[in-house]
Every structure is written in structure tokens, then in C-alpha cells.
């Protein structure tokens, strides 16, 4: 696995095994923050950034824990590092871009419990990627997450104007749309070889 080219890692994480539509990771923000394209793309950018930071940290932690033979601490230390990374991002964003900070609101701290980020740390460890591969993998996963979020937001903006039966509004219709998007993404399966 580690001999994979960087391009195929990126495409794999972004399209073929899209974190949201093929692995079901990060469904909560996918259903929660996909109301408007502008918010969705900002959320995607924040998640991608946290993914890069935590991927870097997870790589270092895994190496350190493997060196002292305490791999059972892996899960606990990953989640602590992710929580710290999110806190860091929150502080940086608040200092340098108060407007973006207000736009993201509660969803910024909630990135901690976004399972896509913990899953990324776990997947890269189990695949045994090197440092550069890890970063590309994180970038691909983040791009895939953003893509799914923006596509969903675009469809939902149009949906506002459609006439729906009362029963189907809200989560149910979002789930059906997600299902159809997921079917469409299966078309990318041929890319991987």
C-alpha cells in the first residue's frame, strides 16, 4: 500500500472513497451545515485545515507510541490531539478573521466530534502511510468532504423552491438526496486501479 502514487491517494480519498458518500463519515455536518453554499464551502475549508493539522499530529503520535510500545493509548491520544487542534484553529480564526469566526458559529467547536477527522487519523495509521502520503491523504479527504457538502448545499438551495409533500420535508428528503449523490459517486469506482 505505501508505494501508491500521491495522485492516486488524493483521487482515492476525494472521489472513489469519498468520506461522506462512501464511508458515511461526517454525516452530522453534512446534514446540518448544508443549507447554503457559502457556509458549506467555509465549513469544508475549516474541516480540511483541521484534517491537515491532526493528520500531521497523528503521524507523530503513532511513531512515538510505537517507539515506546504503548499502542493501546492510540485512540485516547488521537482524540485529545484533535480536540487541541480544533481549539487552536478556533483561536487562530478568531484572531485573524472575526467575520469567518461568526459565520461558522457553533460548528467550529463541533469539528471535534466530526468522525471524519478521527477516522482519517485511524485510516492513515492502519494503511501505514509516510508523512507526505498522510498529508496528501488528508488534503484529498478534506477536498472530498468539501465537494460533497457544496453539492448537497447546491441541491438544497434549489429544493427550497420545489413543492414537496409535508411528510418528506427535512431529514428524510435530505437522506434520499444523499443516497442519489452516493449512487452517482459510485461512478468514480472505475478510476481506481
Amino acid at each position, binding site marked *: 500500500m505505501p508505494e501508491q502514487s500521491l495522485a492516486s491517494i488524493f483521487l482515492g480519498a476525494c472521489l472513489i472513497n469519498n468520506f461522506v*458518500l*462512501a*464511508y*458515511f*463519515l*461526517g*454525516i*452530522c455536518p453534512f*446534514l446540518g451545515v448544508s443549507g447554503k453554499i457559502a457556509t458549506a464551502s467555509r465549513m469544508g475549508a475549516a474541516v480540511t485545515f483541521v484534517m491537515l493539522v491532526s493528520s500531521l499530529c497523528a503521524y507523530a503520535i503513532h511513531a512515538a507510541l510505537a517507539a515506546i510500545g504503548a499502542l*493501546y493509548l492510540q*485512540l*485516547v491520544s488521537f*482524540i*485529545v490531539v484533535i*480536540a487541541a487542534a480544533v481549539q487552536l484553529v478556533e483561536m487562530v480564526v478568531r484572531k485573524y478573521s472575526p467575520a469567518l469566526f461568526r459565520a461558522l458559529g457553533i460548528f467550529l467547536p463541533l469539528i*471535534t*466530534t*466530526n*468522525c471524519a477527522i*478521527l*477516522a482519517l487519523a*485511524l*485510516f492513515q495509521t*492502519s494503511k501505514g502511510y509516510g508523512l507526505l502520503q498522510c498529508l496528501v491523504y488528508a488534503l484529498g479527504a478534506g477536498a472530498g468532504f468539501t465537494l460533497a457538502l457544496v453539492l448537497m448545499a447546491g441541491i438544497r438551495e434549489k429544493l427550497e423552491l420545489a413543492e414537496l409533500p409535508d*411528510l*418528506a420535508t427535512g*431529514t*428524510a*428528503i435530505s*437522506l*434520499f438526496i*444523499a*443516497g*442519489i449523490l*452516493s*449512487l452517482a459517486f*459510485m461512478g468514480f469506482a472505475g478510476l481506481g486501479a
Partner: protein
Amino acid sequence: MSATVPGPGSPADDLLRGLWRENPVFVQVLGMCPTLAVSNSALNALTMGLATAFVLCLSSLLISLLRHVVPREVRIASFILVIATFVTVVDYLIQAISLALHAALGAFISLIVVNCIILGRAEAFAARNGPLRSFLDGLGMGLGFTLALLCLGGVRELLGSGSLFGIGVFGSQFEPWTVMLLPSGGFFTLGAWLLAIAWWRRRREAGARVQEAN
């Protein structure tokens, strides 16, 4: 109906609330990721449900015991640590019981840590109530989650491979509906369940109105 529902605050209510009235998946729409990802067969769904219920019970209990010790500022971080510890225990437990099952569930056992149901119950209930009530609440929510997973896993396995818990149901002439086992099948099944429940609720409300009018 209201005569049979136990009053709020009683132990029976703590336990039963999570099963149906405040079912974490169907009513609160929490914990979507594991719900959709591992519900492609009834057995996977059952294992995942029970593992989550175990973590939910024990972490609710421990968090409730610690609720006066932990300062408010660091409570979320401490909750996550408690949850992650129990998840590590479950991870090794399932590995010891069945390696095949562990491989089928993959990273999703570790991902119980970020299941929002658990942190949600810790913050909303266990941090404010005594150990016994928190334990019952965790058990109820955990069983409710298991029930919802079984509903999804059962339907998807039945349609996707024509079997239930690995036992063939429809016989050999049944053409498996493969899409139900794929990710999109999970979205469709959950959407259909939510629709069915919304429809059922509306019917019951309409029925209650007719009775009142008479």
C-alpha cells in the same frame, strides 16, 4: 395511551424514554455515521448496537459519579477521555471474541468515541443526574440505538442479500437487491424509515383529534 406512560423522572421512564419516545436515531437523528455505515447486515448492526450500548452505560455511570469532581471548563475534554477509555476496552473485547466481526466493523468500533449520542447523553443527562438514573438512561438510549440499527440492518440484509442473520429467507430464486448493501442503500433505508415514522405519528395525532372531537 398517556395512562400507560410512566411519569417523567421515574426510573422506568429513564429506561424506556430512549427506546421509542426519544429514540436517538429515529427521533433525535443523532449518531448517523455508525448507523448508516455498519447496518448492511443484521449481525453487524446488532454487534455495533450492543458495543455502543455498553460504552454508553458505563461512561454515563462514571461521568455521573465524577460530575462534582470535574471543573466545568474542562468537562467536555474529560468526558471524551472517559468515553475513549471504554471504547478501547470494547475494541479489544470484540477482537478477543471474534476477529471476523472486528474486521467487518473496521474503524467504526474506534469511532464510537465520536458518536454524538454518547457525548450528548453525557452532557445533557449524566452530568446533571445521579449514577443510577444516568445508568438507566444510558441503557435505554443504548437499547434504543440497537433497536434502530436492527431495523435498518434487518431491512438492508433482507433486501440486499435475501437473508436475515445469515440465514436465507427467500430461497434461491430471489434476485438480491445489491444496491441496498451499498452506501446509497443505507441513505434510502433510513430515509424510508423516517418517512414511515412521520406518517405513523401523523395518523396517531389525527386519530387522537377525532377521539377528542367525539
